[in-house]
């Protein structure tokens, strides 16, 4: 029988994949992808919790997460475009302008 733990472990694994992406990649677009993965892993966890506890709150959260993710993509992509126009690259190593 598939239990809550299964889903949570799956969610954790997906989160770890997204996490690897975040720390490994230098391209901003790839970072966005990785972020999406992490968000989705969280959504799975919420939906699973919702299902196993018979409580809609988890779904509500997942729902709002999707809304936030959508906004993030909209704004984030806009920013990426501006950045690309300005610097011609999306590589983080070339964008380091805030050196302390």
């Amino acid at each position, binding site marked *: 029988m598939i239990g809550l733990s299964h889903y949570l472990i*799956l969610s*954790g694994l997906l989160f770890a994949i997204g996490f*690897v992406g975040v720390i490994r990649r230098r391209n901003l677009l790839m970072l966005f992808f990785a972020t999406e993965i992490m968000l989705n892993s969280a959504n799975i966890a919420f939906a699973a919790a919702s299902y196993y506890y*018979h*409580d809609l709150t988890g779904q509500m959260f997942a729902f709002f997460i999707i809304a936030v993710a959508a906004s993030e993509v909209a704004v984030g992509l*806009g920013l990426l475009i*501006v950045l690309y126009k300005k610097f011609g690259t999306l590589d983080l190593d070339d964008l380091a302008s805030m050196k302390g």
Partner: protein
Amino acid sequence: MYEQIAFYLFSVLTIGLFLVTVLSKNILYAMTSLAAGMVLISGFFFMLGADFLGVVQLIVYVGAVMALYAFAMMFFDATRDIKEKTTNDALVFFLGGMVALMLVIIFAAPVFSENIQAMYPVVEGVGNAQAVGLVLFTKYLVPFEVAAVMLLVAMIAGIILAGKKMDHSLTTNDDKVISQEDTK
């Protein structure tokens, strides 16, 4: 039984697809595999009885977000392989592995007991979409509206940011001119 098969199948596929996303050098592959992974995740939602969420997932992610990414990619000349120095792989996999390990340990451990009380129990005999609607438009009305406004704002922001100086052709003007104009 079907449920188990579906779960493991979907899991393996999702993990694989997302790994491709994360590790692929080609941005197009990455995006495609991401889109596929999203579809599979909506499958999980359906399995979990969150029909409405699954539909939203399909529409928003696979439909809207992926479309946005696809359009954005056109700006960035995405067909060629990305040349980037990746962070030291040993470190990455150590950290990633640790995170995975931790999460698995935490979630697998039986300490998180099951005594959580449902605040908004699923109403029996009511469809998921209907139930979601009931909660969403009563208890979560204000957050919902706020989310709506946020999306609107995000949309406008996206248009403004991306749409600035759309009349300039990126291919004819070189970067210097643009950056100079930006600083004006």
